[in-house]
């Protein structure tokens, strides 16, 4: 149920590199026929298949039962009026029509897009810069890496609770520091003009470390021979960075754009803990809207329709990324 941080195969199912093909490992089709008479072979196959099904059935039952079934159910729900208790009523496209006219939904979309547009580039640029700075052998560099990455494992709940304390307009440390510096106190999460930006800031604190780690790993894969060759040709550090290192990072960057975008379109926990969508709806993001419709107002069909709009957007992003990736890095699929 909870989404793992790293399935990462969304647009990119890993290639079956060493897949043995049907017939692994034991009776390989060709040889087996020679070794066994066909009756025993069929028996062995049948036993093998039965064992295999026994092995996969828990996973299949739970994974497919709790995602394929709900995906279809959700689609049906989106054409119904449902309050989670009484039987639902078919309403056709009414939910979608209502969504198109709902100012709260369009506000939620605007907020989500703004969040994404701020968070994704900032976390990537920041992550790349930090990775470049951290990618050297100096004392304490391991400690620096750990400190920068550690907020990533802190739950959104804990982040939210911590930052509503730090940013509390009256008792928070942030305003206390500001007043000591002679600056005027800020409303932070209570100010409709600031709240969303503050949430982006909190998410950057915890989410940039992921980009750093991924970029660091990729930087260490850049072939040193390439860099040395460029050096020998007289390229300065800046040229090496621009013409060797950055191009080598393109596939990773594409992946990170996709990954961070998906993360920011699905932001919920932090909003729930800190602002509950307020003040004045300034932090109501799409998932918060869906949750509110389904589990607070008990208009589950309406929430399901909103969820389908979100899913469609995610799908679109996946497809676009695939196309872009195919174009900029044609050999990427073979990696």
């Amino acid at each position: 149920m909870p989404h793992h941080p790293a399935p990462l195969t969304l647009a990119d199912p890993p290639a079956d590199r060493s897949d043995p093909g049907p017939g692994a490992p034991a009776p390989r089709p060709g040889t087996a026929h020679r070794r066994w008479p066909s009756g025993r072979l069929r028996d062995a196959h049948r036993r093998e298949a039965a064992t295999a099904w026994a092995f996969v059935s828990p996973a299949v039952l739970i994974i497919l039962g709790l995602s394929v079934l709900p995906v279809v159910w959700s689609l049906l729900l989106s054409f119904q009026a449902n309050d989670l208790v009484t039987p639902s009523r078919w309403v056709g496209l009414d939910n979608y029509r209502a969504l198109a006219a709902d100012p709260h939904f369009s506000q939620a979309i605007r907020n989500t897009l703004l969040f994404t547009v701020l968070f994704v580039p900032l976390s990537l640029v920041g992550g790349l810069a930090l990775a470049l700075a951290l990618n050297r052998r100096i004392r304490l560099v391991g400690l620096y890496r750990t400190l920068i990455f550690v907020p990533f494992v802190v739950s959104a709940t804990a982040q939210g609770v911590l930052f509503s304390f730090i940013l509390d307009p009256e008792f928070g440390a942030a305003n206390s520091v500001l007043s000591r510096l002679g600056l005027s106190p800020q409303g932070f999460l209570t100010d409709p003009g600031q709240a969303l930006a503050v949430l982006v800031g909190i998410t950057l604190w915890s989410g940039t470390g992921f980009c750093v780690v991924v970029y660091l790993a990729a930087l260490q894969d850049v072939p040193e021979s390439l860099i040395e060759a460029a050096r020998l040709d007289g390229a300065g550090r800046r040229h090496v960075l621009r013409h060797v290192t950055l191009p080598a990072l393109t596939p990773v960057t594409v992946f990170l754009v996709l990954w961070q975008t998906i993360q920011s379109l699905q932001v919920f926990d932090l909003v729930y803990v800190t602002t509950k969508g307020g003040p004045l709806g300034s932090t109501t993001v799409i998932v918060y809207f869906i949750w509110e419709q389904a589990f607070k107002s008990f208009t589950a069909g309406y929430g399901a329709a909103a969820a389908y709009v979100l899913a469609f957007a995610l799908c679109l992003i996946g497809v676009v990324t695939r196309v872009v990736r195919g174009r900029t890095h044609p050999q990427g699929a073979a990696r």
Partner: protein
Amino acid sequence: MTLAAPRPGTQPRNATSDAAPGVGRRRPRLPFSAWHLLLAPLALLFALPLAWLLLSSVMSDAEINRFPPALWPSGIDLGGYRYVLGNALFPRWFLNSLIVSAVAVAANLLFGSLGGYAFARMRFAGSKVLLVLMLATMAVPFQLTMIPTFLVMKRLGLIDTLGALIVPSLVTPFAVFLLRQFFLSLPRELEEAAWLDGCSRLRVLFTIVLPLSRPALSTVAVLTFLTTWNDLTWPLIALNHDTQYTLQLGLTTFQGQHHTRWSAVMAGNVLTVLPVLLAFLGAQKSFIRSLTSTGLKG
């Protein structure tokens, strides 16, 4: 850029000692680098909120509620911790989270191994289709499935019990897939020998394959623990009574009810973060490896 350290950027982190002169005894020999002037403040900036979390958890409420609030505790006051642990519900939430996470980890290891092994090594009708279907479910956003999942759990009578949290997290496609990929990378000959000696599949898996799969198993364990322990959305939907809450859900409620007792809220927050922090620091290497390698092998 001219301030660079003696070994410029691209050296692999775990370079073997023959990779460069001076690496053999590298710690004492590295000269001070000007990069510290940039990196140390940045690293501290990232650490600051967590340091503040720890500090405020040992402050007294008087110190916190003063205006302007104190930025450094005058002494260590464990009143917050005493209040939180004396609160009848908090230990309960901790236990609930522990139960759900422990079951999720154990179940993911077991079902992930079984499923992953069947997909990696066994031949059965429909395996390809099933595998693709399972992979596809990784791309389904949770928001799309949460409403029907709630309805399913309601039919099963599990809403407002820990079962509603446990059942959906028993096995993730991620665990199955990661383990399958790892099993494929193991040499097949080891298993074939045992298999031809008449060992059952189950025995081969448990006595030969799994002992060789520690890195992949620890990756699955750590990531499963992290995601189940940290989840808020699903517990929020599936649970109603505060005796059933998980720690994350409990913490938000606790904050709502005790917003004048910040030291207690922060003490609770420390206790919420501590388990994942320890898990991360304990398994840092495999954790980072899993984040970077599983995703990028495209």
